[in-house]
């Protein structure tokens, strides 16, 4: 399924995931964590991976020039 709007959606999602990853790494975000203080690197890495996956999906979804 190729569509530039879908690609843009994945791109935005990727940026959101990157921001969430940074917030977990800096210890700002404490949602769904086992402790309520300090940085959460596992969560940060997870959202980093999700960001990469979203950017990859965006590249797959965009309509390519022939």
């Amino acid at each position, binding site marked *: 399924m190729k569509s530039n709007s879908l690609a843009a959606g994945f791109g935005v999602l990727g940026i959101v995931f990157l921001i969430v990853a940074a917030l977990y790494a800096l210890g700002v975000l404490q949602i*769904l964590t*086992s402790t309520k203080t300090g940085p959460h*690197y*596992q*969560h940060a*890495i*997870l959202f980093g*991976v*999700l960001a990469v*996956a979203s*950017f*990859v999906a965006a*590249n*797959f979804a*965009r309509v*390519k020039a022939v």
Partner: protein
Amino acid sequence: MNLWQALFIGLLQGTTELFPVSSLGHAVLIPSLLHWSFKQSDPSFLPFLVLLHLGTATALLVLYREQWVAIIRGFFAAAIRGQIRTDDERLAMLLLVGTIPAAILGVFLETRIKSLFASPFEAAVFLVANGVLMLAFEVLRRRAERRAALDSAPRAEQEEGFGQAERISFRAAALVGACQALAFLPGISRSGVTIGGGLLAGLRHEEAARFSFLLATPVILGAGLVEVPQLFSSGVPIGEYLAGTVLAGIAAYASARFLLRYFRSGRLDPYGWYCIAAGLVSLALLRLNL
């Protein structure tokens, strides 16, 4: 923990991590049955588990070193191009899709589930459940073989009727990856459920095992690397821990080589029966407090 205990746990973890018999279940059950005084939940035990997992992941990386190079190259090529052209590129994307559900469930649920079901009694019950699950996977597989009119063919021919890891669908890869979350229950085997999931997705046994091992590597390695700073906390007997880790790595490498050869014609049934027997014996021993 003394050196011999560290070596024993290393050997146990390295062997059972890849066999479809649950490493966590055995790690919870055996020290308890041997009346060893240390607790798995003790904070000083975590660095040891981290090292053992790094040992297992290293063994898998060594075993599949050439394939990982091709997968990583394939990932970047397909990601930049936005198109899959080769089997390595498809496998790289399948592994990414399979790893994501496992990573999400692992980060958000693993600690909670493990702390809920960490008793030896529950581990024994889940070990029996794991055995039933392995047998169920094979029952479904035999049904698929009958449907494909392969039930009377020799084993090698039966296996050739099924596919390679690179050919499974992305939906199946995500489902197989999500199955790994079941392994947070001590007694349920990560490799068992992923190999079983691979069989249901139409893979050969050997290919299901290969996909399971490839899928496990980033999760085990990632979880281990994140916890590395724990190793530098005070009071960690690093010498004993490293000895256990080396043994875990060697055991994992030998286990993976054995299993890949075994699954060319072998099935999950023996491991299913083993899990049922080991779980029932453990339940009896725990009940009798022997």
